[in-house]
């Protein structure tokens, strides 16, 4: 199995605060991967490291086996759409297609034009005057015209209305399915990406909390309900991700490493969203009582 993006104890620091720390992950080729985490979790930092905009402060990241920072040749294989889909707002979509041709050796202008025509994007209006959804489509068309092997999208649908979100993701899936492009797209909402992704990376508080194929993740997590639990080991449970207790009853979300046979527990399957929320809830609230000067 080919690995497209590989991070090894990757870290990036702004001043004294780590935006990303000890991040290790492997993104296999051909996956549509969702990078999920709350705002400020380090998603953009990870994507910027992968596209070579940032230089790692610790560890290493490799894309197609190459270190992306300062590697101009590697850029040809990576399509990147930054957050808020920045484009030259006074350029028309047609001019942006021309500009892309001047900025890339491999450039499929026909693909971009066909795409934009199909989507009904006017070629001669400044993109600053297009709707947010249309602008995102222009940015995606420009990224696809590079014929990239890896597509990195930073919060591509965050500023779109629900209809535009669906259209954007549909058109994205339509175009990467045939080419076998690996896609890594970030969002702070799993619900946006749940339908399209088959791989998931959960990032929180500068660290990778969870990474794996969606099917595996759903398969290996279970919800256990039983009498109040004192924290002792349970057969078949590798780790308790999140526990909530009432006086008499405990509800645990656990990662399993075998069948759970203990009859004291009622075992339920969980959805992807429950898994993600369980990992995000864990350690997401770094308390700041000291900074506020109030008692904890």
């Amino acid at each position, binding site marked *: 199995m080919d690995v497209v993006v590989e991070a090894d104890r990757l870290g990036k620091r702004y001043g004294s605060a780590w935006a990303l720390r000890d991040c290790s992950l492997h993104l296999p080729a051909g996956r549509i991967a969702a990078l999920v985490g709350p705002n400020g979790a380090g998603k953009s930092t990870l994507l910027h490291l992968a596209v070579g905009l940032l230089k790692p402060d610790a560890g290493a990241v490799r894309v197609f086996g190459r270190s992306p920072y300062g590697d*101009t040749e590697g850029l040809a294989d990576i399509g990147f759409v930054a957050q808020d889909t920045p484009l030259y707002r006074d350029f028309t979509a047609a001019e942006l297609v021309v500009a892309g041709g001047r900025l890339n050796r491999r450039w499929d202008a026909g693909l971009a034009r066909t795409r934009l025509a199909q989507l009904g994007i006017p070629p001669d209006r400044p993109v600053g005057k297009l709707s947010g959804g249309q602008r995102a489509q222009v940015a995606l068309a420009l990224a696809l015209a*590079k014929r990239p092997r890896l597509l990195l999208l930073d919060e591509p649908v965050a500023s779109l209305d629900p209809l535009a979100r669906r259209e954007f993701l549909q058109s994205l899936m339509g175009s990467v399915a045939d080419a076998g492009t690996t896609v890594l797209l970030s969002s702070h909402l799993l619900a946006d990406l749940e339908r399209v992704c088959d791989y998931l990376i959960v990032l929180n508080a500068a660290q990778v909390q969870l990474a794996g194929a969606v099917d595996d993740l759903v398969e290996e997590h279970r919800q256990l309900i039983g009498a109040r639990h004192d924290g002792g080991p349970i057969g078949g449970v590798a780790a308790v991700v999140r526990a909530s207790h009432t006086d008499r009853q405990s509800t645990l979300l656990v990662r399993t490493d075998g069948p759970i046979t203990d009859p004291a527990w009622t075992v339920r399957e969980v959805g992807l969203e429950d898994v993600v929320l369980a990992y995000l809830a864990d350690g997401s609230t770094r308390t700041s009582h000291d900074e506020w000067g109030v008692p904890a």
Partner: protein
Amino acid sequence: MIWLTWRQHRRQALFTLLGFAALAALMVPIGLSMRNTWADLGLADCVRQLAAPNVAATIRDTCDAGFHRFTNRYSSLNLVAVLLLTLPVLVGLFWGAPLVAREVEQGTHRFVWTQGLGRTRWAVVKFGVVAAAAVLAAAGYGLGMSWWVEPLTQAAREGRLGMIVFDLQGVVPIGYTLFAVALGIVAGTVWKRMLPAMGVTLAAFIGVRAAVAILARPHYQPARTLTFPIVGTDGPQADRGGWILAQGVRNPDGTLVAEDTRIQCPPGVTAPDGRPCGAELGVEPGAYNWQLYQPADRFWLFQGIETGLFVALAVLLLYLAVRRVRRIA
């Protein structure tokens, strides 16, 4: 990439051209009128005659009177000259500072720097094109100003080497403009917002220009000294248009009696109380006037040195800017 640069900056280029045209429409008639007056007063002959050694006193007096009339008539234009001095820094503010700062402010650097060309190439081509355009504009400006200020400087005692007029003409505007643009670009890579970058550019440009003009320029070449007696009919034989750095009156033993002045008494004249010329200043017999100056024929040498200095600074700054661009995400 050149196409992209042109597409992004064509509006700025158009505005600059329009500005130039408006400036020319204003300045050319003034320049022509100055030259007419110059010819009417016969000052072209004066310049030639005064350049020769041993000019007769009558010619000098007539010519000085002519220069005086000319200066009186056009002295208000010196204010215009001072205003024109700001043009290079304007180019730095409006071309240089937004170059990187605007991309970062609007986030488009993440689009353009992740294309297959790479950001180093982007920076080199873009900085190169804008710098070349700035050099062209500055060369036109320098040539035009050389023509325009020529009568003003020839009429003034201090020639082309004097403050302000030296900075306006010849090739130095190229150095200043290139420096201003480079400064703007670097400020944009450090502050990454247009307004702070423009502010820093303005402050740094004024600081460096003033420091060079006041501290460095007088010492590009060892200054010459000129001494002449305080008693005599003949004034100093210093060439017209020399740039006087310091002057004063010295006693025979070399001590400076009076700074920033000179004394000239006709022979045999004494003060009403019978004391010799300059005695009230503490001047001893045998005292002489002393001047430290840069001769006028060093104009092009000084232009070359100053331009070289600013071009070198600009190249250094541009190199820094390319380096900085690699660190912005």
